[in-house]
Structure formats: structure tokens, C-alpha cells
């Protein structure tokens, strides 16, 4: 019985480590980052001022307390309700502190621009091209902002939730 009383739901170690990371970042950037979402799967915070995303990325990579040296993934997102597009970056401090955290950045749905972090993590170069290809946001400062999967002249952005497939592509019927 006493054992049960002592048992309190433990904070998952991933969340604990993410708290440390978030504290370091929010001390530096203040309101530019949102409060930490402490979900046990992948704790994340959002960059409230997207124009600071590149600075935050550089800080996260180079600060000796953080050393996020590895971008595991960068995915696009569509939020039609908010009129926004966004990215989710999964970052890791591989072989240094073992931190794992996700960062979300949003921009306007029409003509939105997110600063590119392809110079911070080279992995982001193709990932950002993919996000652009599928969702249609552009990445400011990316050196090669072209489509990567779809043909250059493809109409629309296929992973947007309101995507309608084009009728013809070079005279070939597309939908069944």
C-alpha cells in the first residue's frame, strides 16, 4: 500500500531533457518561443516569431549547452483552419547531450516564407525542397528552391488538405 502511495507518475526522461533545452532557449529568446508542449512522445515548442527561426537554429546548434548537431527530419504541415502552413523539425543533440526536441514554425498559407535552415543543417536542404514541393511555402535564403518530387510544371501542392488534382499533365489525363 505504501509503495502505491509513493508512486507518482514519473516525468518521462525525454520531457525532462526537453525542459532543460527549452529553458536555455527561452532565456535567450524570451517571447519568440512558445511554452513547451510536454507530450511524452515528442516534446515541442513553436517559434512565435518566424523571422527569428534562423537565429534560434544557429543558437541551438552552436550553444555548448545544447549542441543540436543533427536534424533528423523536417516535415511540412497544413493548417487550413488557421490559414497557415508550417514545418516540424526534429532535432537531436547526437553524441553530445542526447537531447531530442521538435520545433514548429508557421507561415501564411498564401505566399508564406519561412527562413531556411539549410545552411545550419545541410539535411534541411532537400527536406525544405520537399516541404515546398508538397505544401507550397517558400524558404527564404535557400540556395536551390526547386521542386524535388513533382515535375517542375506540376499544378498545386499535393499534400495541402484542399488539394484538387489537375485534369491533364502534358496532354495525359491524370485522375482515373
Amino acid at each position, binding site marked *: 500500500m505504501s509503495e502505491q502511495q509513493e508512486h507518482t507518475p514519473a516525468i518521462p526522461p525525454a520531457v525532462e531533457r526537453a525542459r532543460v533545452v527549452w529553458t536555455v532557449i527561452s532565456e535567450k529568446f524570451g517571447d519568440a518561443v512558445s511554452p513547451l508542449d510536454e507530450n511524452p512522445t515528442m516534446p515541442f515548442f513553436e517559434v512565435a516569431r518566424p523571422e527569428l527561426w534562423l537565429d534560434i537554429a544557429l543558437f541551438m546548434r552552436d550553444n555548448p549547452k545544447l549542441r543540436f548537431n543533427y536534424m533528423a527530419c523536417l516535415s511540412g504541415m497544413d493548417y487550413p483552419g488557421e490559414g497557415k502552413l508550417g514545418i516540424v523539425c526534429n532535432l537531436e543533440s547526437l553524441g553530445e547531450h542526447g537531447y531530442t526536441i521538435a520545433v514548429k514554425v508557421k507561415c501564411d498559407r498564401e505566399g508564406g516564407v519561412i527562413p531556411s535552415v539549410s545552411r545550419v543543417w545541410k539535411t534541411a536542404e532537400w527536406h525544405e525542397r520537399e516541404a515546398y514541393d508538397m505544401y507550397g511555402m517558400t524558404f527564404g535564403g535557400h540556395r536551390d528552391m526547386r521542386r524535388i*518530387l513533382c*515535375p517542375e510544371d*506540376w499544378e498545386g501542392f499535393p499534400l495541402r488538405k484542399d488539394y484538387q*488534382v489537375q485534369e491533364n*499533365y502534358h496532354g*495525359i*489525363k*491524370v485522375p482515373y
Partner: protein
Amino acid sequence: MGLLDARITKHNVLVTSVDNVMNWARLSSLWPMGFGLACCAIEMMATNASNYDLERFGIFPRSSPRQSDLMIVAGTVTMKMAERVVRLYEQMPEPRYVLSMGSCSNCGGPYWQHGYHVLKGVDRVIPVDVYVPGCPPRPEALIGGLMKVQELIRMEQIGITRAEALKKLEEKSVDPGHLIEDARQGARAS
């Protein structure tokens, strides 16, 4: 010793029709274009490899469309790839044949409804002679399809169109249901 053998050995004369010889020569040395698109290509490679050994039929992949007379469209044809497939097909010399291998190539396969990027059947861009069903088809199925191409070539004659040859092939076709039923009855009887 048949009549034919006797004529060859004694007089060095072989009597046949030009159609026959040409068709036999062509169907015995089909050279498919060596390119694969998706998972079906793995099965195609397996068919070419030693276990199934297509070379026993004289079928040997060539790496240039200019030396190929058969195009095996093995796998998912994306919209981006479709134009390249057409270009390769156009570079092949006549007479040429197309074998569509697997569900994706036949009709879009699992991308039928939601695959915005997949061509819903390669017959939208090039004419297909033989379809091999399956996802992906086993090597035996591909060999079956290749033998169907050989049958089609055997039906061809100088002066008739491919469509007429296909019609002749259709007249010759056997209902597999009957074959299976016959085999079952034979098994029951014995």
C-alpha cells in the same frame, strides 16, 4: 527420319514460308528494353537471373531502346516518368511490342484512387500488347506473358495488321476454366 530431315540432309533444301521463318526468328530472340520502374522490376530481374533463366527463350535485356523490340513496363509509371517511357518507346525500331507488367502499370494499382502522381495505366500513353496481372507478378507469370508475346508474333503475317494478328490469337485462345475442369475430371477418373 521424317520427310523434313531427309530433305535437309539429302538436298540441303528446307521448305517453309517466309512468314514462318521470320516469325520464328523474331520470337526466338526477343530483346526487351532493360529498364525497371518499381517492385515489379525486382521480379523481372529475378526472371532474367539464373533460377528462371530467360535466355533459354533467347530473351535477353538490351540496354538501348534502338536494339530492343520488346518493352517490359515493369512497375509504377509516375506522371513524371510517363513522358520518358514514351520517348524510349518511340526510339525503339518497328516491329515493337509492349508488355505491361503488374497492377500499377496495368491500371494504376494501389494508386488507383488517391495517387495523384501515378499514370492510371501505361496504355494511356503507349499501346500495350500483353498485360501481366499481379502485384507484383511472380516470374512464372512474366514468363507466361512473354510466351503470349511469342504467340502473338507467331500469328503475324506480312500484310496483316497487329490488330488482325491479335484477333487470330483470340480465336485460338483457350478458356483456362475448361482446362482446370478437364484436369480435375482426369484426376477424379484416375
